[in-house]
């Protein structure tokens, strides 16, 4: 099959061009002052770094980590039992529940955020039921939005691991004298850790970097790192500070992936 290898070669260069090169360009941008990505009048400077200390940016980073962290934790607390329940259903209607869980994801994400926004406004359709939720601009609204949008991303990786788990291991541990709780804590849970980790990554990363969601549900009062980055690239055209912030996000992602991969190695 050697002759088929050349089918993959262009892909390698294509991916390097579109994945590695931008990171390089962004690194250069974050150490310099330019107009956009025009390098003709480049001037190297560290002033982007000194701007990082400003409270707007620090607050955005802290907001991103705490709100996305809380949302991820809630997703895990709801998502794990749900995945467990579905994986252990003794019915041929399992696919129906899975389809019901997947279908909301086919609905436009932005519009689902808008639906929550319409609901959280003091004047909402709920008024006819005598309820007025005045939640826009609160952290609670942002967290509810995040949980609602990203919950499936937590459920599916965990479900996949639980569903594929070798059931004879559970029987073996029961034969060896473990009670139901011990089977769970000593066998099922440790074996599902890889699913939990991918679930956490799949929920935490997009929710921490979201910008439309905090903008709509936070009413402009709660800024996340995504809002600041969007602002830099789309409104004030400060590509240098924007690049620095994006590079920080990328470094954080790869650092956490590195830690996860190392831990995974030691667990197995």
């Amino acid at each position, binding site marked *: 099959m050697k*002759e088929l290898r050349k*089918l993959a070669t262009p*892909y390698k260069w294509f991916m390097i061009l579109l994945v590695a090169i931008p990171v390089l360009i962004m690194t250069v941008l974050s150490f310099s002052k330019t107009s956009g990505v025009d390098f003709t009048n480049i001037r190297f400077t560290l002033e982007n770094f000194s701007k990082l200390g400003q409270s707007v940016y620090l607050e955005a980073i802290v907001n991103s980590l705490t709100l996305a962290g809380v949302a991820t934790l809630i997703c895990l607390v709801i998502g794990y039992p749900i995945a467990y329940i579905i994986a252990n259903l003794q019915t041929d209607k399992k696919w129906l529940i899975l*389809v019901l869980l997947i*279908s*909301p994801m086919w609905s436009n994400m932005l519009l689902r955020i808008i*639906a929550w926004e319409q609901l959280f406004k003091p*004047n909402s359709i709920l008024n006819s039921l005598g309820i007025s939720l005045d939640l826009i601009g609160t952290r609670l609204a942002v967290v509810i939005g995040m949980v609602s949008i990203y919950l499936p991303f937590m459920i599916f990786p965990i479900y996949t691991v639980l569903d594929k788990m070798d059931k004879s291991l559970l029987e073996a541990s029961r034969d060896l004298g473990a009670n139901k709780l011990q089977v769970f804590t000593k066998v099922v849970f440790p074996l599902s850790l890889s699913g939990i980790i991918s679930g956490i990554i799949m929920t935490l990363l997009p929710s921490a970097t979201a910008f439309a969601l905090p903008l709509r549900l936070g009413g402009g009062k709660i800024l996340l790192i995504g809002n600041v*980055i969007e602002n830099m690239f789309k409104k004030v055209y400060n590509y240098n500070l924007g690049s620095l912030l994006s590079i920080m*996000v990328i470094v954080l992602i790869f650092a956490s992936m590195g830690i996860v991969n190392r831990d995974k190695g030691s667990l197995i």
Partner: protein
Amino acid sequence: MIVKILKACRLPLLVITFLIMYFPLIIIGILSVNKSSYAHAFKGFTWQWYTEIFSEATLRTAIINTLTVAILATIISTALGTLIAIGIQALRPKEKKRLLMLNNIPLINPDIVTGLSLMIVFSFLHLRFGITTMLAAHIFFSIPFVVLSVLPKLQSLDKDLYYAALDLGCTPMSAVLKVIIPAIKSGIITGALIAFTMSIDDFVISYFTTGNGFSNFSIWLYARLGRKSFSPAAYAYNTCITMVTFVILMAINIKSIKSKKGRILNEKNSSCIDNTTYSS
């Protein structure tokens, strides 16, 4: 004791999950038939927003753009992704692992990082932002999904089939087209479905890679929100999409359950190589 508590929690948990996920959809559904164009009161039932999907020019353009990009991106990324996956499968294990790691980076990266990276490369290359850059971006983020859904099928494919085709006089390319691709059809279809749904729903990456006024549905929506001029036809369009995908998902599942027994026979038939097609 704890087991009992967990069992008691089962129903409430399912209810909470479905509520939190379906609440927005219900609201969107209600607002799509609401007579008032403001979302704060229900003023009666109407179908007018469903007809406005076609009469409101900017929305219609945005929907046509979304579908054009999604269909083109799906076709191109499925074709490229399948060939790339075949190439990756033929690589030496070490190289394969390395390329797969590269393949997975866009999958892990949050949309904003992917969108920004592409925007920076495109403006570095002085490309004209618009439909081509958005299409290129959609192809870029769809290919890894196609590769990942095709690869498992390739792994379980008997390599001897390919060599047999070569022995019977196929060139490598026609062996790929006539033997490998029909055998991994289900993986290709899954990949194409994922690519299409990713593309049709994408906001962030499109937002960063478009320009010169070319907008898809999500970008149209985002721009409208800023200007507070927002037509409920958007709710109507989304409700239609949700309904259609729901029906398709149900149909696929019902069909796959019904044909479970028949499938084994079918697979046997389809993997048989029909010698007559190679006579040319």
